[in-house]
């Protein structure tokens, strides 16, 4: 079984969308807590963050969104955000309150592995990461390692990055934790290609776009990824 992680931006519709994603076969739901200046994100998630902020999705509302989503789905929920929110809220308090709302862990896109080790979180590594940093991220990560499949920001690409395979191979050698590939993965073909080398995939921008259409569209999209992943694991 390959793990399918689906990213949604926090908002009023998120609990219903998360339920649709889970029915479609998502194993983990990431909930984006929007930040005004998201350096790791491409245009789709940046615009979604702008809309969410305009709708008043500040930290307290996002935590409430996690709690509401928790009531609707059984799969793990992982907030993904930026350090500025934790600076303002308090790092440990943020982690505690997210946990109390029902979050299983946390991802902070601009907090390198050597910063704030007291906040246990899912660590990210990139094709540019040194072996030493991949090892450290493997040691410190919370459950699985988020492999950034390309040098770039979030957003759909034509094909799975050629850098992904060598990063997976390197990470396998350096750590024993499950490896999930994200950034640039949007189609069932990408997901299948990623699943052949990694233990799971993360889809963000295309999920956010599909979620903007309807829960049904999201369910259908997630189901198509699920099918591709299952076929890849069976093959």
């Amino acid at each position, binding site marked *: 079984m390959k793990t399918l992680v689906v990213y949604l931006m926090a908002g009023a519709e998120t609990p219903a969308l998360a339920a649709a994603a889970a029915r479609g076969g998502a194993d983990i739901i990431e909930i984006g807590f929007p*930040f*005004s*200046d*998201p*350096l*790791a994100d*491409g245009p789709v998630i*940046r*615009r979604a963050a*702008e809309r969410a*902020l305009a709708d008043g999705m*500040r*930290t*307290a509302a996002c935590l409430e969104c996690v709690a509401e989503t928790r009531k609707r789905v059984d799969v793990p929920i992982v907030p993904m955000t*930026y*350090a*500025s*929110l*934790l*600076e*303002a*809220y308090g790092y440990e308090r943020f982690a505690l309150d997210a946990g109390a709302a029902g979050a299983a862990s946390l991802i902070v*896109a*601009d*907090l*390198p*592995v050597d*910063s704030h080790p007291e906040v246990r979180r899912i*660590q*990210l*590594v*990139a*094709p*540019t*990461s*040194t072996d030493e*940093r991949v090892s450290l*991220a493997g040691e410190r990560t919370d459950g699985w390692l988020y492999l*950034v499949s390309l*040098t*770039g*920001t979030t957003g759909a690409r034509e094909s799975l990055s050629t850098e992904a395979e060598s990063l997976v191979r390197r990470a396998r050698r350096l750590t024993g934790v499950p490896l999930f590939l994200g950034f640039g993965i949007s189609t069932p073909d990408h997901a299948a290609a990623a699943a052949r080398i990694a233990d799971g995939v993360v889809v963000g921008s295309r999920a956010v776009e599909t979620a903007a259409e309807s829960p049904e569209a999201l369910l259908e999209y997630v189901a198509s990824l699920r099918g591709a992943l299952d076929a890849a694991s069976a093959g």
Partner: protein
Amino acid sequence: MTFDGWFGEYGGRFVPETLVPALDELATAWHEATDDPSFADELDVLGREYAGRPTPLTLAERFLPGKRVYLKREDLLHTGAHKLNNALGQAVLARRLGKARIVAETGAGQHGVAAATVCARFGLECVVYMGEEDMRRQRPNVERMGLLGAEVRPVDFGTRTLKEATSEAIRDWITHVRTTHYLIGSCVGPHPYPTIVRELQAVIGREAREQFLAAEGRLPEAVLACVGGGSNAIGLFAGFVDDSDVRLVGVEAAGAASLASGRPGVLHGARSSLLADADGQIEDAHSISAGLDYPGVGPEHALLRDSGRADYVTATDDEALAAFRRLAETEGIIPALEPSHALARVANLEAEIVLVGLSGRGDKDLDEVLARA
């Protein structure tokens, strides 16, 4: 490396993992360069033979009769602003790193012009991100960058000013990090940038201190400079920070007072004092001066504020405009709107012998100023 990138509780590195190895590489290259006398020699020659260093120190006798106000004339530097000091140094550094592509952000366009200039001089590819609002109000600089062979990419979302331009430049760097050097324009950003930019701008303070001693036989009572990101101020202050009798005063735009009214937060890779709300969301800055229209500030300024070594005050758009006109009419010098904020605070300062950093010239601002006549 003995310095870890923290200025007290400010600074650090808050960036996506993709950039961390490049920042380590940059820190190492910087360290090696500063240990290598040929790096300093190369910058010295470029400064004298290309940029026009040393820049003069001018006594502004008619600007404020009764006080002895000296201007450190970075407006007379090639390209018309202090930004070239940093751009030249980082271009030499980029060549040492083997990077042939430069990406930069710009607000007023002065840093963009400096980046485009050094890229033309060294044969490097140059991409400059600039907010659409700033492209409108600093049109001459957009045209200069084009003539110099740089590609100016408009940023059409969010504030359409320096904050978004900086974010887009960093996103470009994330995407092209292996081939590209990010030529940041101020003493902001993740470690080691605030240190690199301070050291490259410290030439302003070194020269000014020596010139001031030669002119007055003593040090100034106070040193003033405008602060947006804070690079000309940190460079000027660097010459006097160890002279405990010399007051250091940074002047922010009243609508962009990250130090006077900000709170700790994280923006563009560093923890500093920012205009942000209680949830850590960055707020919009407002200033007539595109170069000061930024909700963040270099982390070292936040430390200088907290330690009490420097004071940070503000000037309004109208006060800056009045000082702009007064300097033009009394001294025959048209300053940029940015240092006009520092000029605006000299009159009511309790000091008679004063040094002001005149960080740039005002040609780029004529449309903006004349529109408010």
